[in-house]
C-alpha cells in the first residue's frame, strides 16, 4: 500500500531544523503552572516518546504545541514557524477517550475529518478526499470497517481509525496522545509498523507514552517530563536509571525493577 507523495514537499532546509522547538514555555491551568519553563528541541525525523508520571503535564505539553492551551510564557515553533502557520503540516491523534464514540457516524467519515484542514471552511469533502480516506483506512488494516458504525468498533479499532484520520491529514509531524493506551496486540503491532513507515518517509512522530517496558523497542528519541524537562536526547543515552529516578521520584519498586532490566540489556 503506497500513499501518494505530497505535492508540496517540505523544503529541505526545514529538515535540519527541529520539528518542534519549545522555548521558556510555562503553561498554567487556573493560575497554577502545570509545566514550568520548558526548553526542548525535538529533532525532525525522530520517533520521540514523551514519558513521565501521571500529572507530569505530558498531554498539556502536546496541547500547548498544538495551540490548544494558551502559554502563560514562552513560545512553541513547528518547523521554525508558529503553529498557526504550520497547521497543515501537523497531524494530531487525541486520546481515544476524549471523544464520544456514540456520535452517529461511521469509520470512513471520521477518517475524512483528517482532510478538513486542507479543505478549509465550507468546502465539502468530495471523491478525492474519500479515496484518500479509504487508502488511509487500508493502511491501518481497517478498510473492511469503513462503513461500520464507530460505536461498534473495538477500542483498538477505534484507535486505528484515529491513526488513519491523522494519516489523512498528510502531515510532516504527527503528534499522538497515548496511541498505545488500552489497545489489543493487533493494533499495537499495526501502530508500531505505521510509526516505522512514517519514519522511513522522513516524517517525525511524537507520542505521549506510558509504558516504560515497550518504549525502548518503539522509539529512538526520549523526553522525560515531570512538570519540567528532566532529560531529553537519543533514547539509549537518555533512558538511564538515574534519569528515570529523577523523573519518577520515589517510586522505588518500579525503578529498581527497571534498573535490573536495563542492566540485563546492557
Amino acid at each position: 500500500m503506497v500513499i501518494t507523495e505530497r505535492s508540496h514537499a517540505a523544503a529541505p532546509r526545514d529538515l535540519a531544523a527541529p520539528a518542534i522547538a519549545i522555548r521558556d514555555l510555562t503553561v498554567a491551568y487556573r493560575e497554577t503552572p502545570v509545566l514550568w519553563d520548558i526548553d526542548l528541541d525535538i529533532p525532525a525525523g525522530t520517533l520521540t516518546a514523551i514519558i513521565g508520571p501521571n500529572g507530569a503535564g505530558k498531554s498539556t505539553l502536546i496541547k500547548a504545541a498544538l495551540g490548544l492551551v494558551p502559554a502563560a510564557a514562552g513560545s512553541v515553533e513547528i518547523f521554525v514557524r508558529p503553529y498557526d502557520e504550520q497547521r497543515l503540516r501537523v497531524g494530531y491523534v487525541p486520546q481515544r477517550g476524549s471523544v464520544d464514540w456514540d456520535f452517529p457516524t461511521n469509520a470512513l467519515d471520521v477518517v475524512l475529518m483528517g482532510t478538513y484542514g486542507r479543505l478549509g471552511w465550507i468546502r465539502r469533502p468530495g471523491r478525492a478526499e474519500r479515496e484518500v480516506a479509504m487508502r488511509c483506512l487500508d493502511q491501518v488494516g481497517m478498510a473492511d470497517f469503513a462503513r461500520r458504525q464507530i460505536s461498534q468498533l473495538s477500542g483498538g479499532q477505534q484507535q486505528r481509525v484515529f491513526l488513519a484520520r491523522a494519516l489523512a491529514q498528510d502531515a510532516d509531524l504527527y503528534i499522538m496522545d497515548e496511541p498505545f493506551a488500552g489497545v489489543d496486540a493487533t493494533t499495537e503491532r499495526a501502530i508500531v509498523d505505521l510509526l516505522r513507515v512514517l519514519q522511513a518517509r522522513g516524517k517525525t512522530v511524537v507520542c505521549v507514552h506510558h509504558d516504560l517496558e515497550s518504549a525502548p523497542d518503539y522509539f529512538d528519541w526520549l523526553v522525560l517530563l515531570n512538570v519540567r524537562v528532566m532529560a531529553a536526547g537519543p533514547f539509549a543515552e537518555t533512558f538511564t536509571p538515574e534519569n528515570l529516578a529523577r523523573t519518577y521520584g520515589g517510586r522505588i519498586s518500579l525503578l529498581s525493577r527497571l534498573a535490573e532490566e536495563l542492566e540485563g540489556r546492557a
Partner: protein
Amino acid sequence: MSSEIAVPLTGVLVASACALLGNFLILRRMAMMADAISHAILPGLVAGYVLAHGPNLLAGFLGAVLAAAITVTAVQALERTRRVDGGAAIGIVFPAMFALGTVLVTSQFADVHLDADAILFGNIEFVAFDTLTIGERDLGPRSIWVMSALCLINVLFVGLFTKELKLTTFDAGLAAALGFSPVLVHYALMLVLSVTAVGAFSAVGAVLVVALVIVPAATAYLLTERLALMIPLSVAFGAAAALIGYRAAIAWDTSIAGAMVSATGALFGLALLGAPRQGLIARAWRTRRQRATIASQMLAVHLFNHESGPERDEESRVAHLREGLRWSPQRTGLAIAGATRRGWVDRDNGRLVLTARGRQAAEQVVAR
C-alpha cells in the same frame, strides 16, 4: 391567507427551523440551552419593543439576540468558575432573565401588547390576522414570511457548515488544531438558535420552544446512526408533529401549540418503543433472548462440571436445579426447554443428561 393554511404552515416552518438546530444541541449534550435561550430572550424582546415604541419586529429581534448573547456568555462564565456545573449554571441564569422580562412586561412603563398567555403559550391561532403590508399591498401573514426566512437561514447554516458543526461536535480538540475554532462555531450556533427562538417564541411561547428544538431531533437519533439521515428525519418529525397537532387541536378544540408539542412527544414515544435497534421493545426482546441463552448455557456447564464425579446423580436431578442453583421454577423450565431445543440435554428418569452436543457447547462456553 386563511387560518386553515396559515396556522399549520407556520407550525411546519417553526418546527422545521427548530428541529434542524436541535440535532447539534442533542449531540453536543446541551439540549437545555434551547430552554434557557427561549426564556432568556423575553427581556430583550420587551426592551426592544419599549425602545421602538411598539412591537417592532427588528427591534424585538435585536433585543432578543442581545439577551441571548448575554445568557450564553453568562452561562459559560459561570461554568468556568467551576463552582457550578453546566445544568446549574443554566438554571441560575435563565430564570433570572425570564423574571426580568416578566417584570418589564408588567411594569407600567412598558406600553407593549404582550400578555402572559402569549409569552407562555404563543399565539399561533392568530397568525393569519397579523399580515405584512407594504404600502397598500397585503403580502399575507407576517409569521409565514418571518419563519420562512428563519428556515432558510437555518438550512443554509446547517447546510454550509455541516462539516464544521460535525467536527467541532465530535472532536473539538482536532477542530481547534485544524483551525476551525470550536468557540466560534459554538457562538454561531447559539446566535442562530436565538434568532430561531424569537420566531418560535411568538408562535408557541417560551415554555414549548425547547420541545420543538429537542424532541424531533431526539426522535431521529433513536432511529438512525447516520448524521446525514438524522438531520432530514428530525425535520420530517417536526413538520409531521406540527400537522398532526394542528388537526388534533381543531378536532378537539384545544390549544394548537400544546397539541403540536404533544404530537412531538407522541412521535418520540412511538420511536422509543418501536425503533428497530434502540427501541425498548427491540431491547427487551434482545435481553430476553440473551437471558434464555445464558440460562441454557449455565445449565449445560453445571451438568458438565458434575458429569464425572460421584455427585452426578444428585446434581442432575431437576428438583436439585431449583434448590442448588436457586432458580425459580419458571427459570428452570426455561433453561431446560432452551437446552432441550438446542439438543444439549436429554431427560432420563427425572435426571438431565448432557448430549455430545451439550458437552461441546459447555466446553466452548468455559473455554472463552
